[in-house]
């Protein structure tokens, strides 16, 4: 009987050891949900390219926990109705070790319920609305890499302060699209600009994609302003720049914050010195960024200006590093390692801090991520902040 017990103990020990060994060799699977079709597909495809670049690099370097990392990429079209089933499939069918992607805020909000049910490790690439932040209050496994919307506004305010100091700019006209993207918090934006001493004599909503800004710009022209600040989408960039000229509206600067810009816009003479906000540009002088651009060109034989590409690259490389350090795909231990991340990335230094509205969330980049560029000679030239500026600020649109 004693012999049987000893044998059982030995078998159990071997089995446990064996299981641990198997666990160490278990292939790490990552679920990625992105908008690969639909209006947000430009960002989604850029992110996919970044993820795949990182995946190649990780697997060439030996993979994660001794095995090749595997990613499962699904197209959510930026639609909650598609994202929720994808998220549930990742957790229940694919049994992934972490879920990333999640570009739109509506998608971010929609997965709050399933996330709290299954509690997977989540690394968000976008979803900047504070609604997402509040929805994930008390969630222990969320790493939000992208700045929140209020960080984006902080960057805008800081840039305006920079303009005032450097050029004496004091008056701003605002055009904003009348959907959630442009109009959320717009009154607070105006109040904050006025509180900071700016005059905002003209602020008006527009319908994105309508293509006709002549009447609005004619009205704006009656208020000589230093800056025309517009919040809209890529489809609005050309009409605003062209029609401002048509009606003779001449602010010193046109500054827009669309998530992406039209193809060919940079080469168009009307784009010259138009300013935009970006999380990253390929002209960034950071060493990690230059390295990223080199790798991207080697793999895709092209360059990108979409900041979702380096953002995705950053997410997957930091996750792989954290898993390797943790020595296990266990989400608690990976979370602990990821929280300790302190890395130079193509987008700058990445360290996680408790999120402002929901401190259980690990927040990555903040207002410091953003830079302002101006279109010049067919390129995006960073002009602010000064430590990443690759050229002087042009204060003479037209």
């Amino acid at each position: 009987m004693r012999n049987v017990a000893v044998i059982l103990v030995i078998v159990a020990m071997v089995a446990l050891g064996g299981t641990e060994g198997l666990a160490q060799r278990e292939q790490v699977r990552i679920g990625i949900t992105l908008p690969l079709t639909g209006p947000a597909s430009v960002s989604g495809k850029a992110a996919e390219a970044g993820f795949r670049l990182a995946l190649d690099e990780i697997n060439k370097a030996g993979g994660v926990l001794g095995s090749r990392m595997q990613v499962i990429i699904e197209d959510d079209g930026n639609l909650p109705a598609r994202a929720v089933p994808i998220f549930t499939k990742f957790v229940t069918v694919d049994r992934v070790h972490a879920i990333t992607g999640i570009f739109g805020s509506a998608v971010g909000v929609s997965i709050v319920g399933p996330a709290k049910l299954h509690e997977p490790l989540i690394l968000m690439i976008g979803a900047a609305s504070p609604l997402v932040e509040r929805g994930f209050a008390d969630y222990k496994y969320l790493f939000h890499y992208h700045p929140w919307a209020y960080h984006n506004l902080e960057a805008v305010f800081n840039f305006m302060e920079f303009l005032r100091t450097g050029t004496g700019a004091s008056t701003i006209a605002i055009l904003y699209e009348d959907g959630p993207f442009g109009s959320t918090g717009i009154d607070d934006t105006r109040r904050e600009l006025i509180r900071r001493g700016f005059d905002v004599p003209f602020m008006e909503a527009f319908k994105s994609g309508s293509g006709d800004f002549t009447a609005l710009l004619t009205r704006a022209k009656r208020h000589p302003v230093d800056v025309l600040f517009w919040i809209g989408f890529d489809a609005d960039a050309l009409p605003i720049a062209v029609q401002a000229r048509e009606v003779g509206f001449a602010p010193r600067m046109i500054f827009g914050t669309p998530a992406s810009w039209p193809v060919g816009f940079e080469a168009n003479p009307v784009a010259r010195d138009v300013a935009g906000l970006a999380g990253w540009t390929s002209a960034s002088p950071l060493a990690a960024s230059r390295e990223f651009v080199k790798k991207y060109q080697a793999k895709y034989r092209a360059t990108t200006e979409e900041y979702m590409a380096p953002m995705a690259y950053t997410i997957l490389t930091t996750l792989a590093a954290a898993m390797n350090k943790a020595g296990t795909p266990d989400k608690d231990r990976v979370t602990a390692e990821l929280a300790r991340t302190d890395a130079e990335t193509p987008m700058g230094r990445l360290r996680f801090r408790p999120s402002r509205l929901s401190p259980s969330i690990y927040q990555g980049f903040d207002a410091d991520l953003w830079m302002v560029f101006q279109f010049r000679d067919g390129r995006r030239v960073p002009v602010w902040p000064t430590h990443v500026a690759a050229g002087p600020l042009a204060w003479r649109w037209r």
Partner: protein
Amino acid sequence: MDLFLQTLVNGLIQSGTYALASSGLALAVGVLHIVNFAHGEFLMVGAFTAYWLSLLVGVDPLVSLVPAGALLFVASGGIYRFSVRHVLLAPELNALLLTFGIAITLQNLAVLAFGATPRVVHTAYQITTLSLGPISVGVAPLITLVVSVAVLSGMYAVLYRTGVGKSIRAVAQNRTGAYLVGLDVDRIYLLTFGLASALAAVAGAMVLVRIGASPHMGFAFVLKAFAIIVMAGLGNLTGVLWASLILATGEAFVRTYVPGGGGWAEAVFFLLIFGTLVWRSWRQA
């Protein structure tokens, strides 16, 4: 006063784009008696045709409106033969659903082929403006207005001064009667559908200069075009010009003089459709 005049000019200029975008739809509704939901997507295809001709061959969009129109004329002939033709005698809902399906298909094909990001071209006249005292006008929209008036005048001349036009009008008035007097009704339908689509393509090539090309651009124009043909009277080609003028100036004045008008302007066409339909039913009662 300057603001009033500039707003009026803005409206007048914009009406050229609207008239060009609506005339093809008016033709399709008037002759084939179908509401072509894919009209906006034909406009989009025209814009992309002009874009690629400009990018790859360096053809100016003003010139490429001819090949864009020709391409859509031929392509829509195929669409007519394989799909539209078969629902013309079916209940109207069938044609509505069919053209809606064609619209969705074309839109998604464009997304797959070109991506969702808008694409822009640049031309020398894109940034050229003309000033008359305090009034400033862009050369590109002025050209659009001139082209629009020329195309509509040409259409009018074809419809009222040629044998083909007479046949088209005969089919529009009474399909059975036209058939009985020996007209090839199917051929007239094919020709009209092709012509209507070609007009959409010409409009697409013209708007390319000012707003660029994107797979989703057609929807906004088709909504405006519906409002215009409802105001003009279904199928009334001559009414398209003044209806476009009313819509465009209405939007311009709302944008200029109504607080928050930038958002409200897009409701003008709904208001005009509503007002026109109520007024017509009141007049008939």
